[in-house]
């Protein structure tokens, strides 16, 4: 009886281990970096993908009237131009880590959803943090 239970537990642990570290791991990639995408372009053609990287400083253009946000996504090696229709999220800024959902069309990545990544480090702002100062800080960031 003991052996039967032990065998069952081993089978379940083995299956879980395989799922976590084996075949499933490769399909569990939440986002691709621009380099990974450009290396294997044919595979992702006309398929919705998520691209993750940093917003390249100095490339952000936002057209307020047409709600078109353009920027370049970079992973330090490769760069991808992104066009996102809609307002930028509150924490979107240059140099920020972002994940864009969408697909490529005519060499431009057409984003349908823009997600902003933030770091695990929490610090109060250096200048002080009365409500007025924080409001100014938030306004400056935009």
């Amino acid at each position, binding site marked *: 009886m003991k052996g039967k239970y032990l065998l069952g537990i081993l089978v*379940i642990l083995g299956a879980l281990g395989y799922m*976590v570290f084996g075949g499933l791991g490769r399909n569990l990639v*939440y986002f691709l970096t621009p380099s990974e995408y450009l290396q294997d372009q044919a595979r992702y053609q006309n398929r919705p993908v998520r691209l993750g990287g940093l917003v390249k400083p100095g490339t952000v253009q936002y057209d307020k009237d047409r709600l078109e946000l353009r920027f370049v996504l970079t992973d330090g090696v490769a760069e991808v131009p992104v066009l996102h229709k809609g307002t930028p999220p509150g924490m979107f800024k240059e140099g920020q880590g972002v994940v864009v959902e969408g697909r490529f069309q005519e060499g431009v990545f057409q984003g349908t959803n823009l*997600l902003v990544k933030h770091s695990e*480090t929490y610090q*109060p702002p250096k200048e002080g*943090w009365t409500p007025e100062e924080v409001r100014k800080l938030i306004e400056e960031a935009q």
Partner: protein
Amino acid sequence: MQKTAPLSRPDGLTWAFLGFGVLLLPLGLYLALAAPPDANQGYLVRIMYLHVPTAWVGYLAFFVTFLYSLLYLFRQDPRHDRVAAASAEIGLVFMGLALVTGMLWARPTWGVYWTWEPRLTTTAILFAVYVGYFLLRGAIEDPELRRKAAAAVGVLGFLNVPISYMSVKWWRSLHQTQSIDLTTGKIHMAPEMLQVLLFHLAVFTLLYLGFVRFRGLVAVLEEAKEEA
């Protein structure tokens, strides 16, 4: 067989946990509202003081369920099963709160309420497993079989806790990695924020201890009624 007559009222320790927890909660709220904002996300960071402790109590409660499920499998003592079930119930509530507070935090910071990224997906699976735990308990009439089956789920389901905790390191995710990293011992938080968070973690742990003892007592009364 019970060694002592089952209590019909919560004992002093249960009241002490609940009393301190409930009394210190408003103080925690005050501390959270007095804590400095974050340089990047401003006052939004305060959701952390609710989000992290609820997730912690969820993980802790499922760990207690795991321990008492194992004990039940070895000793076949119904008391251990009652603690396991009580803890799983509280864990489910707090895990649900962690998911909800996480969604409320995600919308203004990430831009969406939900996305199928590793931490969120593994935590949703974790939540679903413990919903299954109670479905299973409700579906089996024979008490002994029910306890055994539930204990098996309580042990195997706990596997999801380390997976959920480590998901932000094992896979590429949108969720940030741990600010209090138990694997490396590094803390990425200003001390005045850390103190407030640790205070909340302590208060929520007190509340958990009170809840689980209280729920265990209710389970005793339920069982007595079922047998009568």
